[in-house]
């Protein structure tokens, strides 16, 4: 069995308002940061997972992302995968 480290990024879809991102953008400007055009907040989920090769692990991660990690009505996801 191979072990993989997976980083999953879950983000609100571009069409969905991100009030937390807007509030943080506003605070960033108050801090004096200039030039911020957009600021949106997502989640990063780290998973260590075993599987019989990369394809099998990708299938598992796809299922997790689609059914649990993200609500695809309002969120998109992507992930990176590294063999340990």
């Amino acid at each position, binding site marked *: 069995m191979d072990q993989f480290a997976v980083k999953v990024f879950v983000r*609100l879809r571009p069409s969905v*308002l991100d*009030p*937390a991102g807007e509030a943080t953008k506003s605070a960033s400007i108050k801090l004096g940061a200039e030039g911020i055009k957009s600021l949106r907040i997502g989640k990063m989920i780290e998973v260590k997972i075993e599987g019989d090769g990369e394809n099998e692990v990708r299938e598992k991660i796809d299922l997790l992302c689609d059914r*649990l990690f993200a*609500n695809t*009505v309002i969120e998109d996801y992507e992930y990176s995968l590294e063999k340990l």
Partner: protein
Amino acid sequence: MDNFTVGVVVFPGSNCDRDVSWALEGCLDIRTKYLWHESSDLSDVDAIVLPGGFSYGDYLRCGAIARFSPLINALDDFVKSGRRVLGICNGFQILTESGFLPGALTSNKNLNFICDDVELDIVSSKGGWFNNGGEKQTIKLPIAHGEGRFHCDSDTLKKLVDNELIALRYKNNPNGSSFDIAGITNEKGNVLGLMPHPERACDETIGGTDGLFTLKSLILK
């Protein structure tokens, strides 16, 4: 109707289960039974309420973890049998996360946790959930949520409108919900999800009785 029993689901983190039970038993004389979320035996209840609260601490997303409980897995057959399911607040979030109702609920536009009375227009009579004898087309119910902003894509919204699945709309949208939506039903009408709390409006001494009709309608066939 003597034996009619409403199952009130209790998740770790539910906090409106006792209010729902009190409103049904004390105000409407309808028998209730608490159902622990690990249970999948729904054979001795005639309707189900998914109450408000913070199931599983709202971890990941509101309702996202509750969706995988044995009870929610058993809910599919219950709904298909035509029996009634009412999801209030966190219960509504669970119903959207688990696909019984379309759309999703996310953080309020102004990021505040809003605890207030709101005026609501009754939009659809589907399922008879708000049948108050035609006396009122606008009702007042309390809301208490941080993540009650209903969101769906334009195709889903069109389907909701065309099929008369929008049950309630806010008169003064408090949270940024698409199309001012506060509650929706499934196509059959036996599943209702809403952010306002009907169980908190069942006695004049606590501010109103506009929630009574909705809880009473749980016994409709």
